[in-house]
């Protein structure tokens, strides 16, 4: 891990670029990348085979 010394008080520099705009506007949020899991198929009942 990179050590950058003792931390000081946080500052904020107002960003005006695309990644910042996307992050602050929920309507422009990217769609979830993970697809929903398909529902599990119920196990098939084994047919009884006459002897």
């Amino acid at each position, binding site marked *: 891990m990179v050590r950058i010394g003792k931390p000081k008080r946080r500052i904020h520099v*107002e960003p005006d670029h695309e990644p910042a705009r996307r992050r602050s506007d929920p309507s422009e949020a990217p769609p979830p990348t993970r697809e929903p899991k398909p529902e599990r198929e119920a196990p098939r009942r084994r047919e009884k085979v006459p002897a």
Partner: protein
Amino acid sequence: MKTDDYILPAGRVAGVRSWRLANTLWAKLGGWLWSHAMTDCWRKNVEWKAAECPGGHPIPGEGCSCGIWAFHNPHIIDEQFGPLLPPRTVEEEPFQHVRGVIIADGNIIPATLGFRAQYAKVAAIFEDGYDALALATKEEIAGHYHCDIIAPEDYDTFCAKHGIRRLDLE
């Protein structure tokens, strides 16, 4: 577009960091610049990189190591990592490291030697004289990130010329 072509909004912060160069064709598709562990890519043609963290807190987090890190100037990175040394022979593995300048904004946690930031872009690549031994020339790297190539000694002048804030001088 070079750094000369746009006016930087006042207040953005300059820092110096190092990267590992893409060492496979697949990695190169993302961009030349990667973190040292090769887990995080600085994508080519993507101007601003946004730091990510699975922690779900504002980035960079106070109790977390997330954020885009950088040192305040080339002297500090030399002190912390040692000077950039080339391979001893040409037969050794190609040189995989490069250093340069980033400009950061958003949330920033300053520290005594550097800072961690929410957003950053590559502003310049340092000339190191090792192009012949490296995986990529500085021109190739600068081409991916549309940035300048400067000597580490010109860092002060570069920041002053572009009006970029230096936290180590405040």
